[in-house]
């Protein structure tokens, strides 16, 4: 039954075709990439490597499947009643050891540079961190320096699930967690880093387009893991960012005062109540 080969052929064709659907529907492809032209352009390096590996593995896939399908088409028992008595071929073994080895070593060395650029401490941009991001079940607590420019002082700006930074600026955050493991994942900037209890890990990234993007928790962190969503806002200019920050700080101070006032009011009301009784 040589027609068995067709099952494997059709499967291989469909598998390759699945990568083509991305041309018509962007959700069948890598997500939007906003780290292409910025100073760090991490996203550009990641996508370039992804596509390079996709092409190499795609060619290997097509080659092996073609050989398999052709073999199944050509050598069923009806067409080959007697198998060739053959135990192997040293020459072939050498060929198909050295060629894949060379390809794998090439991929390994080729991508080493990107990895050092992206994650080695030596590559960390020499800029003060824009914020400290502390993950907790199931929120991102984000703390920006206040007017004194330092994180950890009483004038800090606190937000929840709301990370802001500036277009085309290398941006560093300090990543921490307050409870379990979480993972800071910016799909649009191709950045992922686990938040580890007990460690403060610097993470850097950039964006070349203003807008809002998803911040994903990528490490299972409990029942609410699925809804641990943050939003990243990329501002067009530094001034936009600072305007937002000062507005947010004002808002924060006002609402804090209001809260204190509210508590006082409630407390005095309660006292009055007690006195009435």
């Amino acid at each position, binding site marked *: 039954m040589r027609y*068995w080969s067709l*099952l494997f052929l059709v*499967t291989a064709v469909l*598998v390759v075709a699945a990568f083509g659907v991305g041309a018509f529907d*962007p*959700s*069948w*492809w*890598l*997500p*939007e990439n906003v780290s292409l032209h910025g100073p760090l352009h991490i996203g550009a390096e*990641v996508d370039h*490597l*992804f596509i390079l*590996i*996709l092409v190499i*593995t795609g060619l290997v*896939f097509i080659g*092996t*499947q073609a*050989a*398999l399908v052709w073999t199944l088409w050509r050598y*069923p*028992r009806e067409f080959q*009643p*007697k*198998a060739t*008595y*053959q*135990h*192997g*071929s*040293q020459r*072939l073994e050498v060929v*198909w*050891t050295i060629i*894949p*080895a060379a390809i*794998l*070593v090439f*991929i390994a060395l080729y*991508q080493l540079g990107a*990895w050092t650029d*992206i*994650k080695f401490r030596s590559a960390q941009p020499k800029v003060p961190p824009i914020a400290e991001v502390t993950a907790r079940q199931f929120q991102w607590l984000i703390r920006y320096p206040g007017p004194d420019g330092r994180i950890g002082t009483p004038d800090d700006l606190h937000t929840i699930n709301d990370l802001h930074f500036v277009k085309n600026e290398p941006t560093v955050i300090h990543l921490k967690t307050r409870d379990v*493991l979480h993972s800071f994942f910016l*799909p*649009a900037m*191709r950045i*992922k*880093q686990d938040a580890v209890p*007990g460690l403060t*890990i610097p993470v850097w990234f950039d964006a070349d387009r203003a807008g809002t*993007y998803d911040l*994903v928790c990528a490490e*299972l962190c409990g*029942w609410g893991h*699925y*809804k641990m*969503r943050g939003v990243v806002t990329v501002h067009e200019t530094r001034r936009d960012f600072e305007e937002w920050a000062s507005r947010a700080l004002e808002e924060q101070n006002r609402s804090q005062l209001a809260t204190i006032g509210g508590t006082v009011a409630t407390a005095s009301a309660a006292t009055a109540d007690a006195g009435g009784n």
Partner: protein
Amino acid sequence: MSTNSLGSADGNIEPVSEATRAEARAASEGGGHGDHGGHGHGHDDHVHPAPSNFLTRYIFSTDHKIIGIQFLFSGLLFFILGGLLALAVRWQLAWPWSRVPILSTIMEGEWKTGGQMPPEFYNKLFTMHATVMIFFVIIPLLTGAFGNFLIPLMIGARDMAFPKLNMLSYWFMWPAFILMLQSFVVEGGAAEAGWTSYPLLALFRWATPGSLNGQTLWLMSLLFAGVSSMMGSINYITTILMLRAPGMKLFRMPMTVWALFITALLQAFALPVLTSALVMQLLDRTVGTNFFTPVAWSVANQPGPVGGGQTILWQHLFWFYSHPAVYIMILPAMGIVSDVISTFSRKPLFGYKPMVFAIAGIAFLGFIVWGHHMFQSGMNPALGATFMLSTMMIALPSAIKTFNWIGTLWSGSIHFTTPMLFAIGFVSMFVIGGLSGIFMAATPVDMHIHDTYFIVGHIHYVLFGGSTFGIFAAIYYWFPKMFGRMMDERLGKIHFVLTFIFFNGTFFLMHIIGMHGHPRRIATPYEYEFLNRPGIHFMNEFMTVNALLLGASQLIVVYNFVVSLFAGPRASENPWRANTLEWATASPPPHYNFLKIPTVYHAAYEYSVPGVEEDYLPQTRPLPPASQQMVLEPARG
């Protein structure tokens, strides 16, 4: 030989029962391989009779064949459970928060949500799906069921080296089974920290409901399963080294035995690390040690600061075992597939020695790649670069194996039987699983796809398209030897076609959806704006429909298995006309396997030998003189 020799000169042997004599006689009549006397076989007279008591014969048996079948049945039962858990996972992903058929009705009272699955229940589903499939299905089926059943038969031994230890290794699985099942009904329910059980989520009772009690039972259960595997692996190593039949040199062993041997070595070296990690987590959870809690760690509502440990330590210990475990789950399937492909190509295995060295290479490299699970974990990125290199290199032996399988098929005389189809399916699908691994070996690319569905797609191409297809090939291939009856070929082929199609339908799009950034272990992706798109909805629903059909297709093999068990046509001694030793004895083999320990004359793959009338030449028959030269110098072929 006469049945008298069964009685043995050994004084301490119980009298031979009538049943054994009958069995032995049947074996010698059906055998036809006793025609090459003339070599010493003094040791093979050491034969105990089969126990006549039902309890010691079928339940607390020390017979490796019965133990293998016990592993097979319990593994297949847990396969059903693991599969149902997976279907519930898929249902939630396709139609989040909708009523799950049957499950919602059963759980209505427990959930109190009007049939909507609570998110922590979803976390339990994928945690237990992976745990059951890995520790109770794939490992026990490949090493427990087929390892036990095949090793002594394929090397020409009467039983394992330590039959009682072997029995113990099966019965140590039962506490594991019971504890794991019990964890579903304790307060807080089953573990839900993923099968990787990363602290601190797994450590602290407040972290998630499954960490209340379920996690403790999970750890205890895996301790038992680990001890069971350890006992098995010691037994396999000893048996293969010490009990091979005369003439069965190491480089004459079938690939299945080679693969099981190297798998046993992997288990023996990797399991102690898992065991200590499990004990450490258990101590952290129960008596207040702090192996995995960092210095001065204080969480709201907890007593004062605790700690002094390191969270990432668990990941190192866990993956030091669990990466080799991935190879524990694939190497035996590779061995099985090599044997099946050679048999049904009627052609010697292409590159037997390179195949053996490739397995050994995978096993060796398998110990130095664990860090590739941890590129984004906060581990020093320089260390990541080292693991990247070793991970790239481990793709090489897998590639060599694939080329050799195709080389075996090439110019063979291919018989498309059901086991052969599953073996070819393995080759075809393992290529996808192997190649997708290269993406995550590349550290920068891994940064994007780590913890996404790309990884889930990859592991399922290796563990379903690979290991499970290998298991199906093995079931169809050795069923006649195990039970003395044939399975239905037509149903087998229908089962293969449907499984192959729906398997790809279920798992291939995971790569696409994963490269788009769809995280794994997430009760619904649609909280995120970049995933709440029609294309993502379509893919999730498509995969779920295929998964349901894939599950339904397995009813065919259940039916075929059960019916064939009782009513299948009787199998002859060697229905596939194969060379290896298990086919040189009756189907099913008598209690002590071989009436007379066979003598082995050549490697397992002498098919279509010129000058031999049939297209196969059992290992018990010498090669014709003309072809001797070619066998001695195989590499020049």
